[in-house]
């Protein structure tokens, strides 16, 4: 019984832990002296859930509160890497009155989610420049002020005390491991003119992303974007 438990714990860890190290993918176009300088963040899609003994429940209020903080963390980390980041261009309240722009942003997000499903299967192909959203991205880059768009997806969970106690009580390693708070953030940089996927990274945190979003995410997001080189100061796009 013990050997089996150890095996399953290792199996779970093998799925969870290497993700942050293995998931930094760069398109050759951004590998060195690139001119991708001006980044625009698209509204992050975040899902936080509470896992309790009575099942998984959405945390829409907490999600709404955490979303701008997650965006802020990503923006700050990118700014520290000398990118010029605009984080509120497509905030819902800003594009509220422009129906067409609102649809265009929504459609682009949907298209990205469709593509993301393919990227997840073979993220290594980002390095071959295989993935693109097409020049449809120009619909939301009307004044050509962005070099790239940043898509953020985050999933976080927090267990209730009852669930944690139950997991410990059953001595189930998988259940115990999964009862800790955790959050996965995927950051994808897409060329704002051609739609090509330029970079993708994944950050994982075991911190309490609901109560201390900022604190829990800054470090993992910083290390997840470690490989992304800063833009060249000489070249203009």
């Amino acid at each position, binding site marked *: 019984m013990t050997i089996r438990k150890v095996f399953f714990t290792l199996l779970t860890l093998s799925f969870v832990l290497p993700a942050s190290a293995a998931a930094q993918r760069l398109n050759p176009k951004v590998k060195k002296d690139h001119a991708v300088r001006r980044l625009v963040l698209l509204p992050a899609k975040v899902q936080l859930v509470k896992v309790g003994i009575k099942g998984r429940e959405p*945390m*829409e209020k907490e999600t709404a509160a955490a979303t701008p903080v997650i965006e802020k963390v990503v923006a700050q980390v990118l700014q520290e890497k000398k990118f010029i980041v605009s984080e509120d261009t497509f905030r819902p309240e800003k594009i509220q009155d422009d129906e*067409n722009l609102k649809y265009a942003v929504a459609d682009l997000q949907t298209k990205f989610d469709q593509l993301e499903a393919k990227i997840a299967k073979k993220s290594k192909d980002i390095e071959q420049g295989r*993935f693109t959203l*097409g020049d449809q991205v120009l619909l939301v880059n009307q004044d050509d002020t962005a070099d790239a768009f940043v898509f953020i997806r985050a999933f976080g969970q927090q267990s209730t005390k009852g669930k944690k106690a139950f997991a410990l009580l*059953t001595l189930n390693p998988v259940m115990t491991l999964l009862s800790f708070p955790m959050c996965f953030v995927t950051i994808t940089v897409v060329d704002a003119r051609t739609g090509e996927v330029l970079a993708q990274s994944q950050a994982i945190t075991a911190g309490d992303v609901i109560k201390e979003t900022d604190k829990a995410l800054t470090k993992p997001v910083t290390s997840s974007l470690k490989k992304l080189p800063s833009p060249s100061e000489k070249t203009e796009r």
Partner: protein
Amino acid sequence: MERQRRKSLLLNRLIIRPGSALLCLLCALSVAQAAPQREPFSFGKVDLELWEQINELDKKFEQSGLVYEEKALAAYLDEVGRSLLGPADLQLEHVRWRFRALRSPAVNAFAMPNGSIYVHTGLLARLENEAQLAGVLAHEIIHVRNRHSYLEYRSARKKSVAIHVIGAVEEAFTGLGVVTIASGVFLQLSMFGYSREMEKEADLEGLKRLRPARYDPREMAETFRLMQQEFEVELYRKLPTFYSDHPKLKDRVDYLSRALDQMGEQPPLPTEETGGQRNRYLSRCAAVTRHNVTLAIEAGLYRTALALARKNLEVEANSADNLVSLAQAFAALGPRTAVPTDEELSGKGKGETRKLKKKTTLDEEEQALAATSAGQELRKQNFAEAEKLYLQAVELDAKHADAQRGLGFLYEKMKRPEQAVAAYRKYVDIRPGAMDRLLIMRRIRTLESQNGTNAQPAPPQ
């Protein structure tokens, strides 16, 4: 002796232990699923929490561009929806009735417990008259009226507790925790729709609301027939959705027919009235149907897009907008047939398509299909059809910007760069402030720089 002991151990491990775990699970589920005893509904803490979460979700739909905001359609949905409400419905605690269209090509509709009822554009595009729309809305109104979401949520929470307990029992037996993992999937599926009884209740009570609002109740059963139409190759077993599969559509048609018989012979509504309802529906939903054609194309549902665009054109053949919409569908269809071939519908064909879809992006899939000689031939035919329709639209309205834009994209795909540039230029002349002006100008520049004859198409849109 040793051999017999091993055999007995193996039997115990492989059959008895998992068997007892499964039995326990089934017992617990049957307890959890036992028909709920309906008492007058009163809000508990959990219900209020759910209500708050739902309000947030509602806001999210609105803010993220998922709600279709055409004012005329919004007013129309509201008018039809409100005609089905009784005075008691307007007094419901924590309910604010809103009837809206959701930008999604899926054939579905759903109700939130706070009174927001969403009909997907994919369903609006399929329906044929106002009575059918009223049937869908009446069904969803009953879900809200009878507090089905809250009751289902309470039941799901009970199920979850049962599953956790069983998971622990099973863990003690086998040490694998398989039930806990599988139960997550089970729970998700069961939460995806209401229980069979609730769906039936919504159908039957909804049906009763149609005639007093002067709608033909028989149209409710007709809606299910329309929903069963499948234009694409069904590669995977469909998940049950709020409106489509819970209970099975055929059962729904059967019990609705029985209920109609029990309602007795009713004087038919005057033909002018039903005809008026049909015409009103089709004219109000023409724009949303075209919008849905675009959404279906984006989602890779090319055959669905074609069928819906054709339907729209049948309603109004002399509409340049409808011609352009059908042309877009033909252009997107590219190397495919308009309806699935027998080969595609066979087990082998489905397997191959699944494999292709799993590995490739939509653009790569298109390229792979177009690489075959059959694909090339189909592409040629579909592009020719698209061109014909675009030109017809231009003939009807020389200043139709979308027709010129569509022609530009089409000629680019057909490797006719000069014609593509000419069409793009006309488009930006007609609509100088177009949202995609930059996109079009870049395409013009790319095509012109490629010096006409050896022009390569720009990246796909």
